[in-house]
């Protein structure tokens, strides 16, 4: 299949560092939106933000799993293979990173590596390209996904509020189960045009402001 290979970072050292620092800030302050600016123009359904995180964090040591829309476009695999050298794996359980362009059909968290009690760090990081990503109060996003979901825990002063979607309808329950398994579990990075938010497994769901269907979960 003939296509022009899209370029990677113009300045790999400093752009990679800037993207990593954005991810580090995002995971260390869960639920808070951080700017993520990139000039990448990757092919097909791979968004510039997904591509930026993939180029900054993955390489030959990190198996990467692509969701169905990303797998369907061979230009995506070509772009990632050329610029990162990361092996693309078919089984989610083998992946260190999962790139997800269609988060509404994200597989269950339990399909991904959870780590082991002795090595909880041997777990997957999910990078999801969502349409809605906001930490501002007020009605607006009604789901499905995190609709006014409130979190507490390490990195959060008091509580943090997050809108993110579209995501599977049972997303809040999935996250509650993911947190309940701490220190095992997966970590998420949500990206949207020009911004990202992090949600490590340590983020404890403490209810939702906007959606009356969600229940407050007991503190663990």
């Amino acid at each position, binding site marked *: 299949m003939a296509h022009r290979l899209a370029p990677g970072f113009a300045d790999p050292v400093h752009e990679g560092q800037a993207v990593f620092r954005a991810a580090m800030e995002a995971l260390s302050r869960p639920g808070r939106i951080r700017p993520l600016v990139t000039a990448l123009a990757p092919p097909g359904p791979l968004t510039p933000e997904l591509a930026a995180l993939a180029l*900054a964090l993955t390489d030959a040591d990190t198996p990467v799993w692509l969701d169905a829309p990303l797998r369907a476009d061979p230009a995506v695999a070509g772009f990632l293979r050329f610029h990162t050298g990361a092996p693309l794996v078919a089984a989610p359980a083998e992946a260190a990173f999962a790139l997800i362009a269609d988060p509404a059909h994200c597989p269950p968290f339990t399909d991904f590596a959870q780590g082991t009690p002795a090595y909880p760090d041997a777990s997957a990081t999910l990078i999801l390209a969502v349409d809605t990503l906001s930490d501002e109060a007020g009605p607006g996003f009604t789901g499905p996904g995190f609709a006014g979901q409130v979190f507490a825990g390490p990195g959060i002063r008091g509580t943090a509020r997050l809108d993110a979607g579209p995501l599977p309808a049972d997303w809040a329950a999935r996250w509650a189960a993911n947190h309940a398994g701490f220190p095992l579990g997966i970590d998420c990075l949500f990206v949207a045009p020009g911004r990202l938010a992090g949600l490590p497994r340590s983020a404890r769901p403490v209810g939702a402001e906007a959606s009356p269907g969600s229940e407050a979960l007991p503190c663990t």
Partner: protein
Amino acid sequence: MNPSNPAAAPAAVTVSAGPGYSFAYLDAGTKRMIRRAILKAIAIPGYQVPFAAREMPMPYGWGTGGVQVTAAILGAADVLKVIDQGADDTTNAVSIRRFFTATAGIATTTRTAEASVIQTRHRIPEAPLVEGQVLVYQVPIPEPLRFLEPRETETRQLHALAEYGLMHVKLYEDIARHGHIATTYAYPVEVAGRYVMDPSPTPKFDNPKMDDCPALQLFGAGREKRIYAIPPYTRVRSLDFEDHPFRVQSFDRPCALCGAEGVYLDEVVLDDAGGRMFVCSDTDHCESRLGESCLGETRRADGQTGEAA
């Protein structure tokens, strides 16, 4: 230390990087590996993430772990401060600052408030840290249980099971032998209610500063190949007993130079006749106060006027 001339402290010096180095010394693949370890360390507060530590152009024990963490996070816009036992002007601090000046060409400072990244050996600055700052600790022995259980396979299981009875026995034996908990540095802490963590050999005086700190705290152990983290605003509790609560050191006199109270003091031997004085361990804190004309007893004795705060 040169407390007599606080004006000489350089603030935000910029020198361009020397040729032939990758930015901040490490190659891109090593940085990505360390960065991935840092992200998992943040997601699992207090858990020690194994990483493939490289040999650095300095001996183990001189901060090879902290240097690798700093090199992995550093960007061109960062302003770096390095302290060794609180001091900006001791060998370890000066050489690491020069290392990053030479390999990354970034700005350095001695002022806590001006720094975006602070690498530290065994102290936390007296000035409160703020959001956006990153504190990088140099760690010699990351495993808090190591001197109680030498086998890595066993300590890993103890962490997996959150089985920290050994540590409480150790603190109890302190009480049985000395009447109080005699551990004064590397005092074990529990992070976010789960992992027991070695705060590196900081004096226990600094443990309360780790709790609910607005800055991100990263720990790097080069020889032991471990990275761990305390995210901002995380509960950090020093282990203790109901009838023997955790207490920090207190000093019965203020800093002899700047008159500061409620800070950690170093003892300085002055002569062979038993003369000594106690001065701020944090040289930037001391010099800042001297710049604001806060004077301790030695300065007042020189005939200068001033008021100890």
